């Protein structure tokens, strides 16, 4: 299971090439790139992002999300590479790829992993703008995206 924390910028196309090179006859690969936006939700220009992380809990959270995806979907391989530290606008923050015999499982696994990363990955994210710095917390829509994958449906 390929989970990695990257303290420096990484080339997503190389990650994808390495990932597909390790496959053995799967019919589908789905990949996702999360890219640092250049504007805050209020439209201010972002100078940089700071992704603070925990020396052990962050990797553990990524591994738990990957293990849950393996358990839940019929995928044969999964890769998550997540940046930490200083991230410039336009740089890739996260790369996720899943491989499966058939496409549906690969699509769903990547959808699931990216939703869970938004609320369950152990990161603290600060946006620095000309007006100052502020720490970000998950938005309500991130929690409701996460909730889509809840094991027990909400009572009617």
């Amino acid at each position, binding site marked *: 299971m390929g989970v990695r924390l990257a303290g420096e910028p990484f080339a997503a196309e190389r990650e994808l090439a390495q990932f597909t090179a390790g496959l053995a006859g799967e019919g589908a690969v789905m990949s996702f790139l*999360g890219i640092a936006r250049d504007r805050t939700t209020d439209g201010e220009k972002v100078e940089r992002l700071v992704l*603070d992380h*925990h020396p*052990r*809990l962050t990797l*553990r959270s990524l591994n738990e999300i990957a293990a849950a995806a393996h358990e839940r979907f019929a995928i044969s391989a999964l890769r998550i590479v*997540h940046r930490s530290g200083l991230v410039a606008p336009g740089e890739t*923050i*996260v790369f996720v790829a899943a491989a499966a015999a058939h496409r549906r499982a690969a699509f769903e696994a990547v959808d699931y992993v990216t939703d869970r*990363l*938004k*609320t*369950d*990955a*152990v*990161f*603290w*994210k*600060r946006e620095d703008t000309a007006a100052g*710095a502020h*720490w*970000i*917390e*998950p938005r309500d829509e*991130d929690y409701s995206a996460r909730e889509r994958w809840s094991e027990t449906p909400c009572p009617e």
Partner: protein
Amino acid sequence: MRIGFFGRLRDALGDEREVAGEAGETVSRLRIRLAGLHPRAAPDLLSPRVRACVADEIVDEDFLLGGHERVEFLPPLSGG
């Protein structure tokens, strides 16, 4: 005892602070003590959304810190 900070608390207080351990002290008592020492960070130190972590596990407010060398305070996660 060493206290580790992350996210907004790291900005306010640095990576780590050392305080003398007190017998029978719980997480909630430590928060009050730290808030007194660092009034500007008090709202975060006292916030129930900021969780305490010992030996890589989240602990409750009545957790006894005696015998533990390090406790960490984790603000709400931003996600990936």
